[in-house]
């Protein structure tokens, strides 16, 4: 059986690796972006000089041959389900028995006038990084549009090159459609402290170019005209599915898939950023364009193809990011706007760069989510508490089990507990230490 995978990102590559573990099928991965799998999440570190591009590749180049995974560097123009074929840009074709679409995302462009000028770029593909590199030489000013995770990364990238950045953000506080107000404020402060010209409640109107076609100026919704040599479009991403428009594969915003990650066409699956679940789990979005879900989908599809039928189950939500010097982790349900029946316990370090938030249910008091800024928590411990709907007071008393900061770091669990006692008049005491033995014991693995 020949399994063809379009896309060598985390989802496609995970699928290939797992299929190889489970079977002897022939596997081919196609990508027009790069010869080998690299970590998209590390593109910023290449630009900033923390790493070389080759350091972003999680596997050595001979890994693929060793694992009998064929690689093709080419763009697919068309998928022809009826003939079980894909057709490449250059007209050649390749047959498959099973096809996995793992084609990822592309940067959003909302039809702004001038969005295709030279010097206007998103940050998603390797080619975007190369474009940023090209345009950075002698660049006097960059305008970044869209306050999400990629936008702030781009701001940090230009900042590292001492290029002044104007950052247009539609919301009135950074990323506040995801982060609760306090955390959003903290990140907003961090952006300002780094000398970024952050313009909140401001959108891009249009981009003007020179006669040569090069970008010259950005017009913001507040009427300000910002002279610039680069405009970064980072207002989100969307599935990269234009080439499938005329195939018979069902498409909405993404490629529609069922719980087994199958499309409407036989033997065609879709995973990762490009997949849209027809019926997502409760509290989850149909398209989740993040690394971890791509990896889990890759695993799931491998099992399904290799004869172990299994439903996609992303488990309990988690994510992480870094905003300049502030690390961020989230486990479970921490919405931006606190729902009616949620309580929240928010502790912030006086320095204003660390915080711990615990959400719990108003009536029955069980834990609902953790939000950490500048503090590291243990994934498995938080997950277990969340899965078992552990009462908030139990969590608080055992909170040290979750601490994952390096040794000798000051711990703040007692402060969080004291805050809770203060708020509620309880007299709870911490009853665990952050010892690995206790953690493993708690996880049932001692």
């Amino acid at each position, binding site marked *: 059986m020949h399994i063809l995978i379009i896309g060598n990102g985390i989802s496609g590559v995970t699928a290939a690796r797992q299929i190889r573990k489970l079977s002897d099928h022939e596997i081919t991965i196609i990508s027009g972006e790069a010869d080998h799998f690299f970590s998209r999440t590390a593109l910023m570190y290449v630009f900033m000089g923390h790493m070389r591009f080759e*350091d972003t590749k999680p596997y050595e180049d001979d890994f693929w041959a060793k694992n009998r995974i064929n690689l093709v560097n080419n763009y697919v123009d068309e998928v022809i389900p009826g003939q079980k074929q894909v057709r490449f840009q250059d007209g050649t074709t390749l047959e498959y028995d099973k096809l996995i679409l793992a084609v990822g995302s592309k940067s959003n462009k909302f039809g702004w006038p001038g969005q295709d000028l030279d010097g206007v770029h998103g940050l998603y593909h390797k080619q975007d990084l190369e474009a940023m590199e090209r345009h950075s030489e002698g660049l006097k000013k960059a305008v970044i549009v869209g306050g999400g995770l990629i936008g702030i990364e781009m701001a940090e990238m230009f900042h590292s090159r001492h290029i002044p950045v104007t950052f247009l953000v539609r919301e009135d506080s950074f990323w506040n459609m995801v982060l609760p107000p306090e955390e959003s404020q903290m990140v907003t402060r961090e952006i300002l402290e780094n000398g970024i010209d952050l313009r909140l409640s401001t959108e891009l109107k249009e981009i003007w170019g020179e006669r040569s076609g090069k970008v010259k100026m950005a017009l913001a919704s507040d009427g300000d005209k910002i002279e610039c040599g680069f405009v970064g479009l980072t207002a989100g991403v969307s599935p990269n599915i234009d080439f499938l428009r005329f195939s018979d594969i069902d498409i909405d915003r993404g490629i529609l898939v069922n719980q087994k990650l199958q499309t409407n066409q036989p033997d065609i699956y879709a995973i990762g950023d490009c997949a849209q679940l027809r019926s997502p789990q409760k509290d989850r979005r149909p398209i989740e364009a993040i690394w971890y879900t791509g990896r889990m989908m890759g695993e799931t599809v491998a*099992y399904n193809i290799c004869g172990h039928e299994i439903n996609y189950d992303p488990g309990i939500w988690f994510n992480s990011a870094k905003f300049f010097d502030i690390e961020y982790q989230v486990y479970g349900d921490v919405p931006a706007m606190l729902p009616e029946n949620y309580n929240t316990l928010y502790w912030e370090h006086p320095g204003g760069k660390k915080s711990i938030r615990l959400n719990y249910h108003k009536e029955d008091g069980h834990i609902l989510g953790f939000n950490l800024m500048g503090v590291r928590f*243990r994934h498995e411990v938080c997950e277990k508490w969340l899965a078992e709907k552990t009462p908030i007071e139990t969590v608080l008393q055992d909170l040290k089990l979750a601490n994952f900061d390096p040794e000798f770091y000051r711990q703040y669990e007692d402060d969080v507990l004291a805050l809770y006692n203060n708020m509620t008049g309880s007299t709870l005491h911490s009853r665990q230490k952050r010892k690995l033995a206790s953690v493993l014991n708690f996880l049932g693995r001692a």
Partner: protein
Amino acid sequence: MSAKSNRKNPIQILGIILFSAALITFTVALGMSGFKLDKEVLKAQVNNEYQYNFIEPYLDNLGSTEYPNSFKFMAAYAESLHSAQADILKDVETNLGLTTSDGEYWNTILKDDKIKSMKFAVAKASSIGPIREHRNTLAWLSFGLGILGAFLYILPKLRESSGIKNNHIYHSPLHSKGWLGITVGIYLVGFYVLLYFFPEHMVNWVLLVDPISTFLNGGAASQWFLYGFLYTICILVMGVRMIVKYRHNKYQIIRTGSVMFFQTSFAFLIPEIMALLNKPAVDLKNMWPLDYSFFFDYRLDKLTESGGLGLFLLFWGIALFTIGVPFITYFFGKRWYCSWVCGCGGLAETLGDPYRQLSDKRMKAWKIERWMIHSVLVFAVVMTIAVLYSYLPESGSLITKDRFIWTALALLIGATVWIFQQYKKKNGMPKTAFYVAAAVSVALFVIALLNGIVFSSSNVLYLDAYQLRSWYGFGIGAAFSGVVGVGFYPFMGNRVWCRFGCPLAAYLGLVQRFKSRFRITTNGGQCISCGNCSTYCEMGIDVRAYAQRGQDIVRSSCVGCGVCSAVCPRGVLRLENGPEVDERATEERAIHIDLEGVRLLD
């Protein structure tokens, strides 16, 4: 200034200028003297009336000419002494009538070794000119100004926000094998070549630190004093840099403080003070087999002659590696030594920190590493046993040659079998380097035994213990640990020696791998495979390979520097001691699928 570098404020620029000026002064000082023989010192060095009588006629030129540099001077010196050597030989053979089979013959001739060993003292005494007149000024201009410049560069970084600051490392010609890195590498290699092989050409540097030496231990400086002094300064100044860089990370602050402390006190000051008190000057934290000469005859003699203190030191040195290593490593991993205490590690973690990203992460490098480091361990063990064997008496003492060799053999076989079992328990049949390394060491011992017992030779392995130990001293002790170990920082990263050559690291690593509570825990599924951890692992461990599968990391080479954990942008890694390592280190755990009956193979 290029956009691809960090902004420097005027104070930092001044710092760079002062530091460069100091480095230039220091370098130029090497040539700031002429050389004219100091006959008295030569005479004292020769310390043999008979030989000196033959030498003296050749000293006319040497004693009256001022040579412009040490190379010309040493050439003339060699010529004179070799002429005298020939005359002596002729006299010994014709007039005294001695032949090579007479013991007296060997005591009377002038040996090459002696000519060589006198070079340093003679050159040092014969250096004349500006270096002596302006010694203190030059010392201040080199060391004082250098330190000042370094601090002016380092300390202003305190004004930036704290956090991981690795911007432009791969844009910098110093940190990515560019022209500046190559220059620094050549300079360091040059320094070590002079230090180990041609100290007579660095006497001017040694003269600069004479006053400091006299102040500390009452005596004039040797090249080793200069080395210790510079080494300590590097660890202190660059230690401050490390602390400034990682000031948000308490593990790094404490760990760096620890290496600074151990270097300054244990490695530098305490031995000097012991020397001042006329006691054996030992570095109490250095241990066999890194301290490969611990069991050499002259050191054992010195210790056994020094009464109670000597015996204590002997006991201490043995306890360190027989009891200290297994126990402490069991509880904390090899980091307790390699990145908290050790001098080589201390230099790597401070002076070498800017080069950590240059270590080779490829599987191939790991393979070579395992072969090399375990071979060096075998070499060190065999060499030491041979040396001890020839040192010990045949009989009449508690520890005789026979008893020693049998015990050593039993211990080695026991240890080898134990490692095999542990390895088998964890990984199945062993197939890696120590399979061979262990087999080789056993084979060597069988030969040794046959040789020692059947042919009752005093040598182990047919090899002359002295030959063996001089090979080791030259190849491993000097060329590898010094010239390559530090000189190659800018080419192969800061732990070349620790990774490929240190026999103690190999030994600690075996304990860490098979019987230790230390591991790096991976935080569930949080890894985004970005590669920062692997890039900044100085030991060339592909940390990401484990982290992205949710596996805990247990690697014999990990020195527990904690930098992978520090640079991870997603909070994935934590150095921990806990219950003994279990399947968390071998299972693929990033999986969020729990299928009854499906077991993941790896």
